[in-house]
C-alpha cells in the first residue's frame, strides 16, 4: 500500500484501489482507555476509536444476559448533531453488535467512542470546470459544510474500521473482524479526472485490481464504480455506499503455523445514499454475499442496469476488504505484538 500516492494530482490511483492504509494500536494510554486504534485512509481521512470495557454499568442500562454496547461518534468539526448520533446509534451499533460476543460479558458496559481526526475538504482536480459540471445537476451532498450533513461514506468506513479494531485491541471477544469499505458511483468524466483509467492499465480484465469499464469511450454519461472515494468524488457521485463485512473463516493450520486460504467476507451492513436503490437489491445483496456466488460481470453493460451495478459495487468492496484491509489489519497486530523489527523468536518455547 505504501507505493500508492495520496494526492490525486500527483499520481492517480486505479478505480479499485484504496488509499494507503495506516493502522496504529494503543494510541491512547491505558489509563484512559482499554483499547484504542487509529485508522486512516490516505492522509486525509482518519478516525480514532477508543473502547472502555467491560466496565460497571448503570442499573437502568444493565442487561442480565449480555453486555450493554454504547457507541458514540464525534465529528471533526462542530458538536455531535443528528448526523453523528444517527451514525453512532444506527450504523456503528448495528455493525459492532453483530460481531462482538456480547453474551460473554453479562451485566457490564462496553463503551465505544469514535472521533474523526482528519477529514480533507474536497480538492478540485485539474481540468474540472465547476461551472459547466454543476449546470443542471443536483449533488447528493450539500456543497457547503452543513451542520446536519450526513457523514461521508469514507468517514463512516474509517470510523467503523477504527471501532472494530479498538474492540479487538481491548481484548473483547469477537466472532469476526470487521472491514468496512466505501464505494461511490460517479459519472465517467469524474473518474477520468481523478483516477487512472484502463488506457494505462493492462488489458487483462479478469483481475480485481484492473477495471474494464472504459471499453466504451464514447459514453460519457456511463457510470463508474470507485472504491474508497475521496471527498471530491463523493460530492460528484450519483450514489455512495458503505459496505461492512465480517471477515472470518481463514484457516490457520497448526501443522505448519501458516495461514491457508482466504477469509470469508459476510456482508453485515449496507448503507446507501442517492441513486436508485430499492430494498430488493439490498436483500439480494445480503443473500448473495457468499464468496464466489457472483460471477465476474461484463462491466461495459453495467451502466444501464442499476442492480447489476450495485452487486458489482459490493463485489469490488469485498475484494478490497479481503485483499487489502484484512491483511493490513493482521500486519498491524503483528507489528504490535512482535515488534516491527520482527524481534519475536519463532523458536521460543512456551513454558507454563
Amino acid at each position, binding site marked *: 500500500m505504501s507505493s500508492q500516492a495520496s494526492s490525486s494530482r500527483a499520481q492517480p490511483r486505479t478505480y479499485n484501489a484504496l488509499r494507503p492504509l495506516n493502522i496504529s494500536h494503543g494510541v491512547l494510554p491505558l489509563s484512559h482507555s482499554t483499547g484504542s486504534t487509529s485508522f486512516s485512509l490516505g492522509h486525509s481521512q482518519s478516525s480514532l476509536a477508543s473502547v472502555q470495557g467491560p466496565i460497571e454499568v448503570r442499573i437502568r442500562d444493565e442487561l442480565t444476559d449480555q453486555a450493554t454496547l454504547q457507541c458514540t461518534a464525534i465529528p471533526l468539526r462542530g458538536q455531535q448533531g443528528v448526523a453523528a448520533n444517527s451514525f453512532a446509534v444506527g450504523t456503528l451499533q448495528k455493525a459492532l453488535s453483530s460481531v462482538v460476543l456480547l453474551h460473554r460479558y453479562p451485566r457490564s458496559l462496553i463503551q465505544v467512542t469514535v472521533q474523526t481526526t482528519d477529514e480533507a475538504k474536497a480538492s478540485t482536480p485539474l481540468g474540472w470546470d465547476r461551472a459547466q459540471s454543476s449546470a443542471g445537476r443536483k449533488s447528493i451532498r450539500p456543497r457547503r459544510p452543513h451542520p446536519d450533513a450526513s457523514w461521508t461514506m469514507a468517514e463512516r468506513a474509517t470510523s467503523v474500521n477504527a471501532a472494530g479494531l479498538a474492540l*479487538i485491541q481491548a481484548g473483547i471477544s469477537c466472532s469476526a473482524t470487521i472491514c468496512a469499505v466505501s464505494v461511490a458511483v460517479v459519472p465517467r468524466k469524474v473518474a477520468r479526472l481523478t483516477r487512472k483509467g484502463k488506457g494505462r492499465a493492462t488489458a487483462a480484465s479478469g483481475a480485481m485490481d484492473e477495471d474494464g469499464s472504459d471499453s466504451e469511450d464514447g459514453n460519457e454519461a456511463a457510470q463508474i464504480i470507485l472504491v474508497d472515494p475521496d471527498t471530491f468524488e463523493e460530492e460528484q457521485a450519483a450514489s455512495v455506499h458503505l459496505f461492512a463485512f465480517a471477515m472470518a473463516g*481463514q484457516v490457520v493450520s497448526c501443522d505448519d503455523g501458516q495461514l491457508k486460504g482466504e477469509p470469508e467476507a459476510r456482508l453485515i451492513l449496507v448503507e446507501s445514499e442517492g441513486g436508485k436503490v430499492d430494498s430488493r437489491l439490498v436483500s439480494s445483496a445480503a443473500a448473495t454475499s457468499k464468496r464466489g456466488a457472483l460471477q465476474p460481470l461484463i462491466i461495459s453493460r453495467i451502466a444501464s442496469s442499476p442492480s447489476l451495478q450495485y452487486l458489482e459495487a459490493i463485489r469490488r468492496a469485498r475484494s478490497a476488504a479481503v485483499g487489502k484491509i484484512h491483511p493490513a489489519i493482521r500486519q498491524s497486530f503483528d507489528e504490535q505484538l512482535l515488534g516491527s523489527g520482527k524481534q519475536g523468536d519463532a523458536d521460543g518455547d512456551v513454558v507454563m
Partner: protein
Amino acid sequence: MVILLPGDVVQFPTASSSSASSSLPAIRLGPGLLWPSEEAKAAASSSSSASQPRFVLATQAGLLGSVDEKGKGKASSEGNAKQQGWWIEGRTQRYSPSPRDPIIGQVTARNADFYTLTLHTSPHQITLPVLAFEGATKRHRPNLKIGATVYGLVASDVAGAGMEAEMTCVDQSTGKGEGMGELDGPSTAAVGATGTPSVSGLISVSLPLARSLLRPSHPLLPLLAQHFPFESAVGANGFVWMRVDRKEHLVAAKAILEEADRLGSTGVVGEEEEGKVGKEGKALSARWGAGLGEKQVRDIVRRVVKGDA
C-alpha cells in the same frame, strides 16, 4: 509466528501429521478460543484417534500458545500434535478473576461478614470473607481499613461470568496464610530489614508481564535482588507490590519493570519474556553499546539511585 485475528479458524494437528502415535489428546481451550459447536466440543474433549481435523474459532487477536499435559509448551511446528491446552496470548489489560490466581486488591468497603475489594483492572468488585485469614476466628478478626492493600488468591470455587468472585487470604487446604493478607502501605508504619522506615508501593505492569513474573523461573526479580534487598508480591491482575529501604530503589524497580514491559512486547509468548534478559540485552546492546541484560539492569539502577533525571 502467525498472529490470529477474531474469526480465524484454528485447525488442530491431525493424526496424519503427527509422527509417532495414532491417538490425539483431548483438547482444552483457554482464553480467546471457542468450540464452534457442542458436538465439536464433546468430540474433542475426549481422546480420539479420528483423523478428522478439529477446528476452533479464535475470538481475540494474538499469538497462539499451547502446552502439553505436563505443562510444557512448544512453539515450533513439530510436536504440536501432543499439545493439549491451547489459548490466545494477546495484550489485553482487562483482568478476569480465575481460580487460584494470586491477586492484589484494595479495600473499598467493609461490612460485618466480608470486605469488598477492587482489582483496578477488572470491571467487577471482589469480596473477601472476614474469616478467610490465617488464625481468624469470630472473636479475633483482622481489621482492614478502607484503602488497604491486600494480597490473596482468587477462591477456587469461583462461579461463572455473571457472579461476583470471591478471594481468600488463606490457603484453603492447609489453613496457612503463606504471606497473604494485608500488605504494608503508606498507612502502616513498616520497618524494613535494616531497621529504618521502609518504602513500599504498587507498580502497575501489563497482564502478560505479571503472569510471566509469577513463574518461579523468571530471571528478572533475582537480577534485581543483586542490586538491593526488597520484598515483593506479584498479582496476576497486573500489579507488583514492593517494599524497599530507599525510595530510589522503588523508582528503579518501576523503571526496570517498565522497560521489561516495553521489550516484552516483542514477544508476548512466555518464553520470550523469560529469556528476554538475554534477548533484550542483545537487542539493547545494539543501541547502547556492548553488554548483557545484567549490565542493563545495573545501569538503570545506577541512573536512578545516583539521582539522574
